[in-house]
């Protein structure tokens, strides 16, 4: 079955949505079809003044998949910060990195 695709304005795009068509700008391919776009990639498209993108409709990941990805990110950050201690600046860093990772797909 082929999933339906549709164009949406960039400011309505959410991290985790899957591209239904390549995103190009001035003849250059920016992101290929099938990419699950991250918050950082969205930001990059905004900077390049891309106004709309084509995404798979109903192609977003299920709530369970998103939950699982968040759990993986949480464990990974805990592993990287296993020697972080309790010092305030390091705790601020840990929180910022965790927020960033939880927001990012995959």
């Amino acid at each position, binding site marked *: 079955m082929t999933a339906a695709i549709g164009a949406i304005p960039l400011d309505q795009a959410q991290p985790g949505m899957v591209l239904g068509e390549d995103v190009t700008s001035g003849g250059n391919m920016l992101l290929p079809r099938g990419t699950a776009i991250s918050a950082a990639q969205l*930001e990059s498209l905004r900077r390049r003044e891309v106004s709309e993108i084509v995404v798979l409709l109903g192609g977003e990941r299920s709530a369970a998949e998103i939950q699982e990805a968040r759990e993986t990110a949480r464990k*990974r950050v805990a592993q990287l*910060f296993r*020697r972080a201690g309790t010092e305030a600046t390091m705790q601020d860093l840990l929180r*910022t990195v965790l927020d960033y990772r939880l927001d990012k797909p995959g």
Partner: protein
Amino acid sequence: MSAITLSTVVADLDRLPALPEVVQDLLDYLQRPDVEVGQVAQRIARDPALAARLLRVANSSFYGLQTQVATIPDALVVLGLRAARTLVTGAALVAHFQTLAAGEEQHAFWLHSAGCALCARVLARQAGVDTESAFTAALLHDIGRLILTARFPLESRRVAACRAAHDCHPIDAEHEVLGFDHAQIGAALAALWKFPAEIAAAIAGHHSPEDQARDSLASLVHVADVMAHALEFPGGEDDLVPPLSTVAWNRLGISWDEFRRLLGEVDAQREDAERALS
């Protein structure tokens, strides 16, 4: 206690393969206050391998150029001489050190260095510091560790075993096993090979930025190092985010919201870092 001391390692630096004459000549010339594009291009052109590498890196998105360049003078003009100076220094030294030690573990080393360089560039832009010096300083910040691995593999393996046994920060394992660390080795090399002073200070002080001048690149490279580990450059089960110095963080004057945005910016360039090493 270790059989080798810091003086053993420093004495051995003289036995490192010398920088190619062309590169040394270029580095000397680039330190002059009155550098000319034509002169620089001529010096680079004397080493075809260096010239080819420079064009390749200048054209890779790793260095963030907007325009494709075909010739060395073009590259110098497009980059600007100041940026070209650090690019030349970085590319020449990285090329040289890659011949010193190869292999799988070195891939992790260079991936971390390249990731750290990307972090340093976005942090420098945000903090209003020269981005190219920050980039090159970060690219070379752990060079002392590479020298230890290449020249003293036995001691280097003992450090790695100690780190694994205690699951501690690598620099703590160096202190435990050797009684000195890679920042000290890097500082000695920077002095011997007359690296630009700001880059030497960053190599020497990236684990102790509090001891360096307020406007030293050491604080920026320290934060970039921490940021690179947080973004999993190199990643893997052993990877550990080093302790972030409050003094260094406050010196940059970047907010946590801005930092979070910069994390995304570097993350989006991850493939550039991997490509730049091939």
